[in-house]
């Protein structure tokens, strides 16, 4: 009996020491899971998830505070990728999250803009060029379509324009004649 106890305690002590040593020696700075989650998120920085940007949302997901189905710009595919990464079940968008929309960029009507810089302060990726009392304009290539600039504008001069499909961005469709006899 005593030997059994001694052996078990001995093993526990040795393993504990090994684990403690490893925890110190092989400590990883930061939380790599957050990086991996952030890599999946679309970086729109729109805040629709309820967090001020994609990184805070990634941190919330990593700490299991937030659910994975709160990001409309990521679409269903984003949820699937997160589910795969975290080993969780896929969950469709909830009632309180907006449905995913087609990619759009903001557009400032230059006839109406008064140069107040409120939209520049709101843009999370600095995609608006301009300065106080100078014309403001959206840098379309950098705009993520987060719509955070639309509300602050006091003269409602910002509208969202959906991007048209060009020959460069056009995608081949999933083959349809296959559906007649096959499974999916």
């Amino acid at each position, binding site marked *: 009996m005593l030997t059994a106890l001694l052996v078990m305690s001995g093993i526990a002590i040795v393993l504990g020491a090994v684990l403690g040593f490893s925890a110190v020696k092989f400590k990883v700075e930061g939380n790599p899971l957050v990086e991996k989650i952030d890599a999946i998120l679309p970086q729109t920085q729109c805040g629709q998830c309820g967090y001020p940007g994609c990184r805070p949302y990634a941190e919330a997901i990593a700490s299991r505070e937030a659910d994975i189905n709160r990001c409309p710009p990521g679409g269903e595919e984003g949820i699937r990728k997160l589910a795969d990464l975290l080993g969780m079940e896929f969950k469709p968008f909830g009632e309180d999250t907006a449905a995913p929309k087609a990619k759009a960029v903001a557009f400032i009507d230059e006839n109406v803009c008064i140069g107040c810089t409120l939209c520049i302060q709101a843009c999370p990726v600095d995609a608006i060029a301009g300065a106080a009392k100078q014309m403001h304009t959206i840098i379309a290539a950098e705009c993520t379509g987060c719509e955070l600039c639309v509300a602050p504008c006091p003269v409602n001069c910002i509208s969202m324009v959906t991007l048209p499909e060009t020959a460069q961005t056009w995608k081949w469709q999933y*083959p349809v004649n296959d559906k007649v006899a096959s499974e999916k």
Partner: protein
Amino acid sequence: MLFHFHGGIHPDEHKLESSERPSARAPLPSRLIVPLQQHIGAKTKAIVQAGDKVLKGQMLARADGMVSAAVHAPTSGTVLSVDLHAVPHPSGLPDLCVTIEPDGEERWIEHAPLDYRAMPRAELLAKLQGAGIVGLGGATFPTHVKLSINPAQTVETLVLNGAECEPWITTDDRLMRERAAEIVQGIEILRYLVNPAETLVGIEDNKPQAIAAMRQACTGTDIQIITVPTLYPTGGEKQLIKVLTGKEVPSGVRPLNVGVSCSNVATAYAIHRLVNHGEPMISRLITVTGSVRTPQNFEVLIGTPVEELVKFAGGALPGSNGFILGGPMMGLHVSNGQLPVVKATNCIIVESAQLFPPPPAAMPCIRCTRCVDVCPAELQPQELHWFAKSTNFGKAQEYNLFDCIECGACNYVCPSHIPLVQYFRFAKSEIWAREREKRAADAARERHEFRLLRIEREKQEKAEKLAQKEKAALAAKAAAAVAPATDSAPAAVQPAPAAAESAADGATQSRIQAAIDRAKEQAAASKEKDTDILTPQQLAEMAEIEARRADIREIAHADAKQQQEQQ
């Protein structure tokens, strides 16, 4: 000594329909629609506009950047518009085109042969770009880029692709039969540009007359005409290189890396027309075949509408239901006859239900591996198809999806009639779209993080400035209290510490004064932009803006009132 590539198929050739008639010059069509993008790379920039009169061979749009090639007027006439028009593209989306109404006179712009041996290679390559020479095998890669060899690379073998392996197409066949001597002249120019150790022309053995004509044209030169067995897709660049040289071009790399340069015989001919006649690329030989009265080859001006070209071939037979631009294995199906012929168009097949019956409905894959047996890229098409079907794009890339040349051999043999090539195209375009999104997302993340950094930095700078100001204010107070002491500084009777202190205070005070002076200066400088020294134009603009603001304020006011009333 010939080598083999894995797989390949033997579809019915259908070449005799159009290969036995001599080629003819297609008459001038009613209008020419010249797209600005007829090549791989950046779109050209138009240098004409509606209403301009142009001469035959005049540049309509210049190349934009290195990977781009200019576009020229196929005949003399008037530019009707530079606008969106339907172009041959699988999406069916329109693209910018220059539409020209021919004046019937076919007046050439001034043009002269080039003395290419006298000019440096770089200049000759620039001339190729300026003349719009692109690969006429179907991929339309700008030729000057293909032939740009940096000094470290050498070309051991120059391969000329005369294989023409796709069924129905006979344009290269007729070109070689009728204009072999000129093709060889073009080959000589290519040899000058790439300086190869050997030159091989690969021609499939179903073209005996072309082989004979080319052999004769090459007598006295050391260009070798090699007969290759007829097998689809021997005409694929990598496949032909393997057959002729035994080298396998590694994935994702240009043939130049293994010392081989490969061009189509029609491209060689076009280079000859440019260098020895000064003509830019404005026309090419095209096969019109299928369900038409007189299938044959035509010398066609780029931009000729497909319908008109088909009329020149005797018109479509009854029961025709569309066109294939290109060959039946890799071509593009279109129904709009208004589409123009472009540099890439080597063939127009008029379809009919008899010649091209619709495929039967697809059954599930039974893993019979017939597709694996025929794939020239030695891929596993059925695996790629499962991954594409389940949108498992990571696995698809692992199984080398991007090595697929979309030749269609797998589709051809599949007993379940699965549209394999369509799955691969779907997967490829989805992967590219995802990569684009990822790049955009990474850029957005960087900008966002930099923005946060910038805001932090601004906060810090503000805090520092505030701290400094406070410090300066405190010092000024202290200096004011100690002022009498500093005035009598020369008196050395003062105790040493006090003198030191007063000296320090004096220094601080002078710095403070300097700062105050600087600020005054800045204020004065900025004051110069005062409203009373504005130009009348600026004043007028400001008045306009003020008027608009007044309007807006009214509207906003009215809105607010309305909202209040509604509540």
